[in-house]
């Protein structure tokens, strides 16, 4: 069917008619699409938490023993670092909506700095484990009880996947700054920035559950 002769009209928030040529300004649609993506992220991490819960139930003593060996100070510091980074991200978005572009950019850069600190702390934490011979499929780990092998398998997988999300987040923040400089993200049209902020909050939310389950439960013996 040939639609070329038909004119499609869409109305903006003020009720003014516009001819549809290439409608690409549906911010609500963009956000809804992003929430669907976050839905899949919740399923991804939710599935991993499900596996964790299942094995925690079946190998409780092993899990507690392994949990007690994790460095709670480094994990705790990272929890605060991530919280502060989400503060800067959210505040940057508020600044940007208020038209304070340079303030917003400084906040995004601070978020990136805190994310890099998070990854650095994580690096030292992992390195300490690896120096003790604890990493997936290591001889020392494989000689341990089944539940401990499962705990560390999940620890490296889940904190690793979370770390990958942090790295992707940093890349997205750099991209947001580039788009601001290029004028694609403006104080009138900032849905990309909003979605990246949503993503960053999700990354924080996952850590809100990761930290107590992996680090704190070992203290509950």
């Amino acid at each position, binding site marked *: 069917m040939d639609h070329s002769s038909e004119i499609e009209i869409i109305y903006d*928030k003020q009720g003014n008619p516009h001819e549809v040529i290439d409608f690409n300004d549906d911010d*609500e649609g963009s*956000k*809804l699409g992003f*929430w*669907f993506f*976050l*839905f899949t992220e*919740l*399923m991804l991490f*939710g*599935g991993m938490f*499900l596996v964790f*819960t*299942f094995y925690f*139930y*079946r190998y*409780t003593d092993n899990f*507690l023993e392994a949990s007690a060996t994790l460095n709670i100070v480094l994990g*705790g510091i990272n*929890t*605060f670092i991530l*919280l502060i980074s*989400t*503060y800067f991200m*959210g*505040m940057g978005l*508020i600044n940007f*909506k208020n038209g304070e572009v340079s303030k917003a950019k400084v906040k995004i850069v601070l978020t990136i700095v805190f994310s890099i600190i998070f990854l650095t702390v994580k690096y030292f934490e992992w390195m300490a484990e690896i120096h003790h011979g604890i990493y997936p499929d290591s001889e020392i780990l494989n000689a341990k009880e089944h539940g401990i092998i499962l705990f560390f398998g999940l620890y490296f997988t889940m904190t690793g996947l979370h770390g990958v999300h942090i790295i992707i987040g940093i890349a997205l923040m750099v991209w947001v700054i580039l788009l601001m400089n290029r004028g694609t993200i403006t104080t009138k049209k900032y849905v990309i920035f*909003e979605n990246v902020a*949503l993503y960053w*909050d*999700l990354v*924080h*939310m996952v850590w*809100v*559950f990761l*930290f*107590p*389950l992996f680090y*704190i*439960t070992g*203290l*509950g*013996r």
Partner: protein
Amino acid sequence: MTHHETLTESMFIKVFFALIALTTLTFLQPYFMHQDLSNTIAIQMFIAVIKTFLIGAYYMHLKYEQPLFRWVVLIAVITLTIFFVITSFDAIYRNDINDFFT
């Protein structure tokens, strides 16, 4: 279009301090209010759920967005809950299943 209420800077800062307080509580609970394992997990998960609620409502603006977005999240939570309930039966009864049939 009706005017939408939006997240203010002062509210954002208030929520931040609430999150800092809850995070501190997460960190200190096992040292200052030592409980047995099931209570520790219950307290920790309770704090995590409150934090998630605050992050979702204020930091992710769900309080100010249209209801459809809240439905997406609710359906995700319900789906995960179903998975957890079904798997919990597997976890709890797995060793007894043969007894069940004999």
